């Protein structure tokens, strides 16, 4: 006979009880004068509360099939030997009983959530982004693009103290010549606005509204003006296909969604956003390449320069940790180079896009 406290789950009255385990070790019986009849609990059904802060007592309840799979009655035992005996002999003491069909419900809602999120991320948001990117008034897009370019400039200058906008008149004139040659005879949606920022990274981007940014290292690394022309044609391809706008619209919707999924685990949300951007943009990059090749062909600019550029990018990538293709925002460089090479071999008469003097002026645009 052991002393214990018992709440019968019907009233809040505390019964001071005696408990005893039956001889066959199958059940325990709870007796008290305040209880109408002794209560019998099968030992196999006993459950103890988990993550309790008290080590001196154990609160027991009983497994029954109900909303929370527990008998509302509670038995509080404080006898150390009895607690130790229960722990040793009852393997199901701390089992978590899950209501039937709970897993089914979770699977159902889990699938629902995954489908809803996937539908939003891969169908509805891109679809709406497509429609909205077409419908957004050009002036608003240009204003937004300027803000983005400014933001990029600010970010770049924080990582590179000497960052400046490069605009030597001769350099700008050379860029204009290049742009005119590429876009001659084309019906362009946007007035292309090219900026060169002095920065040590080999890169170029397109922002919404016809804003194109080239980093000066790209001009310095390029071996011929045709390489730069290829990159420029590629960025114009993004602009004309409204990729930057679409990307921005999609990101606006996705940001909220991802932060909901991952809670305050900000890192995971950022990684998720990157993977998502990567999956969208690889397709956009292939399309922009196609546009660029077609543009070079029409303008009779030698695509060998563009091919050469990819070959050298590949060399740069090898030095660093190689990024697997599905993690990268751009398709595999060697594949892109091959595409350009094929065009170059089929091209007939081409003429130089800049004179040597113009090319020298362009490379010195930051000086």
């Amino acid at each position: 006979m052991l002393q214990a406290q018992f709440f019968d789950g019907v009233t809040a009255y505390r019964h001071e009880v005696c408990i005893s385990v039956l001889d066959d070790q199958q059940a325990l019986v709870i007796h008290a004068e305040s209880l109408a009849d002794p209560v019998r609990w099968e030992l196999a059904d006993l459950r103890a509360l988990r993550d309790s802060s008290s080590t001196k007592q154990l609160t027991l309840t009983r497994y029954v099939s109900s909303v929370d799979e527990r008998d509302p009655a509670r038995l509080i035992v404080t006898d150390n030997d009895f607690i130790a005996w229960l722990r040793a002999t009852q393997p199901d003491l701390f089992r978590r009983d899950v209501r039937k069909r709970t897993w089914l419900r979770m699977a159902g809602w889990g699938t629902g959530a995954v489908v809803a999120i996937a539908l939003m991320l891969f169908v509805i948001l891109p679809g709406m982004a497509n429609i909205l990117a077409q419908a957004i008034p050009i002036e608003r897009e240009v204003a937004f693009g300027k803000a983005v370019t400014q933001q990029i400039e600010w970010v770049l200058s924080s990582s590179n103290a000497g960052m400046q906008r490069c605009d030597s008149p001769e350099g700008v004139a050379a860029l204009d010549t290049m742009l005119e040659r590429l876009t001659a005879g084309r019906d362009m949606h946007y007035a292309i606005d090219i900026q060169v920022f002095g920065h040590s990274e080999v890169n170029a981007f397109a922002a919404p509204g016809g804003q194109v940014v080239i980093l000066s290292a790209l001009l310095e690394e390029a071996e011929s003006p045709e390489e730069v022309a290829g990159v420029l044609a590629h960025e114009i391809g993004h602009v004309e296909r409204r990729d930057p706008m679409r990307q921005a619209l999609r990101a606006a919707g996705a940001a909220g969604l991802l932060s909901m999924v991952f809670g305050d685990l900000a890192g995971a949300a950022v990684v998720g956003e990157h993977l998502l951007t990567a999956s969208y943009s690889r397709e956009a990059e292939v399309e922009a390449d196609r546009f660029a090749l077609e543009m070079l062909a029409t303008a009779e600019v030698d695509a060998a320069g563009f091919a050469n550029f990819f070959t050298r990018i590949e060399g740069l990538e090898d030095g660093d940790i190689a990024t697997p293709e599905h993690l990268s925002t751009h398709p595999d460089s060697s594949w892109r180079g091959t595409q350009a090479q094929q065009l170059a071999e089929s091209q007939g008469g081409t003429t130089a896009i800049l004179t040597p003097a113009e090319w020298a002026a362009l490379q010195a645009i930051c000086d």
Partner: protein
Amino acid sequence: MDTHHLASEPKSVAARQEPDSLSLFFLVFKTGLLTILTLGIYRFWQTTRIRQYLWGSTSANDSALEYTGTGLEKFIGFLIALVILALYLGVFQMLLFYFGLSMFNVSSSATNPTEQARYLVVVYIHILAVLPLLFYASYQKRRYMMSRTRWCGIRFSMEKGAWGYVIRAIGYRLLTVVTLGALAPLATFKLEQYMAERSYYGDARIKQGGSWPRLYSSLTHLFIGIVILLVCLGIFTWGYNGLATALLCVGGVWVAIGVVYYQVKSFAYMTSHKTLGEEVSFKAEPRTGAIIRIYFIAAVGMGVMSLFIIFIISVMTAIFDFGISSVTVGFIGAALSYIFLFLLFQAMKMVMITQPILGHYVQTFSIINPEPLHQIQQRQADDAVGAEGVADALDVAGAF
């Protein structure tokens, strides 16, 4: 009213909360690590286990509270909320963006008036879209927690009524803003009353007594702080900058303390004027000084810890500066230390701020005339489908 010192003082029992800080620290740290390893999914189980622990360490009349919620039902609630919110928020954000009203293309520092007006419109649209959901979430969260709390084997519960709460919350908050805070006590009183009077312990309902104008005395220190700031503004325009700066500091601190004072005193008033059934009432006597001391000690403790960590990191960097073979190793090292610090401070915050404050509120709480509690009858289990999913999805779940 404070009439308890009269000779015929009824019997009362004090509540207690006696957790073991060290095991609570390791519980938070361990479950936090699991949360990171599972990309955030374990956070529902983390909250549940922390609640189980805190509830279990809280007792009155030698009987501990019990938390019966499960991580699984919280996770399912979150999934349900996600399905609905995903569609709502995703489409909403995109439409705003299209109309040029997104946070992306307006700026608070715009100089021309139309741009400024547009910025304000954007801010208000966001608030209007999300605010009802936040109020909804706060009601559902409290309802879920009540439905999963037991004492002496008897369930607590709260009726449905989240949308009614949303409407009242928006109305009273708006009134508070329009009157520049002058009607804040009305909002505090009515909103707490709305929640309290839908609450049950077993078959006994909670009643909220008292009247809202009595909450004005809780505003005393906030008022003094604001007066100091106004005086400071006056002096500043007269050109006594040194004096104004000193007053600015004093006024700022006074306002901050005033906010805590209001929270503490209004809680004490509201709780001391609740009754359960016909006869059981409560007394809450939390002290502002005690709460501020907890914050102060935590600030000092975490500050010392931060200095110590900065010291360790600079030593480590000095040692390994030449040793780091590649960018990758350095990056992984930085990521691991970030995770460790995140977990460390999460656990420290629980042990030094969240639990001590909760503990202070519990320790200064007592039940007056607890005798009739024994007659209280059990109530039906409440399924509470959806748990507190909206709060979890919107990340307003709070510390536990």
